[in-house]
C-alpha cells in the first residue's frame, strides 16, 4: 500500500556557535492511510523536530535535508503558500499544552471557524454550523455555549478537545498529535485517547502520536517507531514490539515501564547513563555506551535499520531474538 506520509533520509540540524547540533539523523519513516503510528522516545530524541521539519514548521535556522512527501507531494522546499494550504487542510496538528495552544482573546468558535474560512472559504454561518458539528463530534457538552466561550473558561480536557475539533475541521487524512495527553491528568488522558481511537475508526484518519509514554502508544497505535538520539532504532507492530523487542534500547525502555505486578518496594528499573549530547559526532551506535550487549563493532560502526521477520526493522548489530 502506498504511504500517506513518506519521510526519507530526513535530517535536521542547527548551526550554533558551539558547533552543529544534530536533532534528527537520516530518518526513514512511512505512515500508511488510516493507521496509527506511535513515535516513542525520550525528551530530545528528535520526535517533535522530525515532524515539525517535515511540514515546514521548524525554526528558520534549521538545516533540513532529505525528503518528506505527503500523498506523493514533496513538502521540503515547497513554498509558504503551498505549505499553508497543506497544514490545517490535509494534516491537522494537536500540541502538548492545550492551555497555551489556543489564542486567549479569541472565542473557541472564532478559532475553529478560522480554519474553515481560511481553507474552505466558508461563509461565517456555514463555518459556524460546521464548528458546532465538530464540537459534538469531539464530545464536548453544550457545544453552542462552548462556541461563545473563551479558552480560559474551559477545562484542560475540553481545550484539548477544542484543539482536536479545529485540527479535524477540514477532514485531514493525517493527524499529528504531539504529546496530546501529557499536560492532562490520567482520567482526562484516557478520555482523549478513547476519542482519538473513535475518530480513527470512524473516518480512516491516520494518526502520528508522539509520546514518551509506551503505555499511551500501546493503547492506541498499530505500529510503533522508537527514536533514540535523533534516529529511529526500531520499528514494528505494537503487539510484536511489546512481546519482544529486537533492539536493546527498546527492551530497556519497556522494562522501565512500571507494572502493577512489580513489588512495591522494588526499585524502579532505569537505563544507566544518558543519551549522547546533540553536539557529539557519533562514530558508532548512539546507544552503544549504555548498551549491555555492545561490542567493539557497535562502538566503531553505525548500524542501519535492517529488516527482521514480521516486517519489523531494527538498527542493531547484536539484536535480541523476538
Amino acid at each position: 500500500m502506498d504511504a500517506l506520509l513518506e519521510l526519507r533520509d530526513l535530517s535536521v540540524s542547527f548551526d550554533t556557535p558551539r558547533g552543529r547540533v544534530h536533532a534528527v539523523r537520516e530518518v526513514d519513516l512511512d505512515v500508511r492511510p488510516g493507521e496509527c503510528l506511535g513515535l516513542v522516545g525520550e525528551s530530545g530524541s528528535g520526535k517533535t523536530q522530525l515532524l515539525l521539519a517535515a511540514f515546514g514548521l521548524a525554526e528558520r535556522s534549521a538545516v533540513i535535508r532529505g525528503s518528506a512527501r505527503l500523498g506523493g507531494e514533496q513538502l521540503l522546499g515547497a513554498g509558504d503558500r503551498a505549505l499553508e494550504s497543506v497544514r490545517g487542510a490535509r494534516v491537522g496538528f494537536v500540541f502538548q499544552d492545550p492551555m497555551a495552544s489556543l489564542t486567549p482573546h479569541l472565542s473557541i468558535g472564532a478559532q475553529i471557524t478560522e480554519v474553515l474560512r481560511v481553507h474552505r472559504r466558508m461563509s461565517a454561518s456555514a463555518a459556524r454550523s460546521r464548528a458546532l458539528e465538530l464540537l459534538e463530534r469531539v464530545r464536548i457538552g453544550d457545544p453552542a455555549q462552548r462556541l461563545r466561550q473563551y479558552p480560559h473558561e474551559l477545562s484542560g480536557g475540553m481545550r484539548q478537545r477544542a484543539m482536536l475539533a479545529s485540527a479535524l475541521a477540514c477532514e485531514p487524512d493525517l493527524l499529528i498529535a504531539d504529546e496530546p495527553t501529557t499536560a492532562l491528568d490520567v482520567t482526562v488522558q484516557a478520555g482523549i485517547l478513547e476519542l482519538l481511537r473513535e475518530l480513527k475508526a470512524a473516518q480512516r484518519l491516520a494518526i502520528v502520536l508522539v509520546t514518551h509514554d509506551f503505555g499511551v502508544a500501546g493503547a492506541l497505535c498499530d505500529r510503533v517507531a522508537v527514536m533514540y538520539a535523533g534516529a529511529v532504532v526500531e520499528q514494528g507492530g505494537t503487539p510484536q514490539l511489546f512481546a519482544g523487542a529486537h533492539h536493546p534500547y527498546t527492551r530497556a525502555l519497556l522494562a522501565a515501564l512500571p507494572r502493577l505486578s512489580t513489588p512495591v518496594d522494588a526499585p524502579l528499573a532505569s537505563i544507566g547513563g544518558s543519551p549522547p549530547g546533540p553536539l557529539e559526532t557519533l562514530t558508532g551506535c548512539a546507544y552503544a555506551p549504555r548498551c549491555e550487549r555492545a561490542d567493539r563493532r557497535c562502538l566503531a560502526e553505525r548500524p542501519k535499520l535492517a529488516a527482521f521477520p514480521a516486517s519489523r526493522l531494527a538498527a542493531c548489530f547484536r539484536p535480541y531474538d523476538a
Partner: protein
Amino acid sequence: MSSVAARRPMHRSALVSAGLLGLLALLALAAPLLSPHSLDAPDWQAIAVPPTLEDSHWFGTDRLGRDLWMRTWHGARVSLLIGLLATAVSLAIGVIWGAVAGYVGGRVDALMMRFVDVLYSLPYVFFVILLTVLFGRNIVLLFVAIGAVGWLTMARIVRGQTLALRRREFVQAAVAMGVPTWRIVVRHIVPNVIGAVVVYATLTVPQMILFESFLSFLGLGVQEPLASLGNLIASGAAEMDTAPWMLIVPAAVLVALLACCSFLGDGLRDLLDPRG
C-alpha cells in the same frame, strides 16, 4: 473594556480626568453656540478688555477686540484634533511597522528597525520644521508631519511585544493550522499588543498637542486668523505685562488638557497592566 473596568476600580484621578476631558472637548465643540461673538470679527467697543460678564466677553478680548472665549475654545478644538489625528497616524504606522518587523524577523526586521533608528537620530523638531516649510502651512499636513515622525516609539514597543508573542504556542498552533501570515499578525498578534498600545497612545496625545502648540508658538503651525492654543499663547505672551488674561486663559486651558490626558493615560496603564 467594560469587563476590565468592572473588575477593578479605576484611579479616582483618572476618572476625574476623563470627565474633565469630556467637558473640555464638549466646550471646544459647543462654545460657539453659547457666545454671540464670532472667531475673527473685532468688537470695536471692547478692545483688550479683561474677562467680564458684560457683552458676553467671558474670557476678555485681545488687542484687536476679538473675543477670547471663541478663540480659546477654537484653539482647544484645533489642538485636540491635531493631537488625536497625529496619534492616529502614528498608531497606524507604528503598529503595522512594528508588528511586521517583529513577526517576520530576520533581515527584514533588521532593515526596518535600522530605518527607525535612522529616523530617531534625526532631530525631531528640525525634521518637522523642515516638513512644514516644504509642504507649506497647512493644518492637515501639519498633523501628518507630526504623526509621521511620532510613530517611532510606537513601532519599537509593538515590535518588542510581537517578538515575545511570536514564540508563544498559540501563534505556533495558528501557523500549524495553515493560517496565512498576515492573518496571524492581524488576528492573533495585534489584539494582544493593544493594551500597551492604548496606554502609549493616550500618553502620545498630550505630547502631540504640546508639540503643535510649540510649533504654532514659533509661528510654524496654525496661522492667524485661525486660532490654536499655541498661537494664542504666543500673542498673549507679548501682552503679558499689560493684559495678563490673554496669556493666562489659553495657557490654563492647555495645561488642563495636557494634565487630563496624562492622568488618563496613567490610569489606563495601571488598569491594563497590573504588574505596572
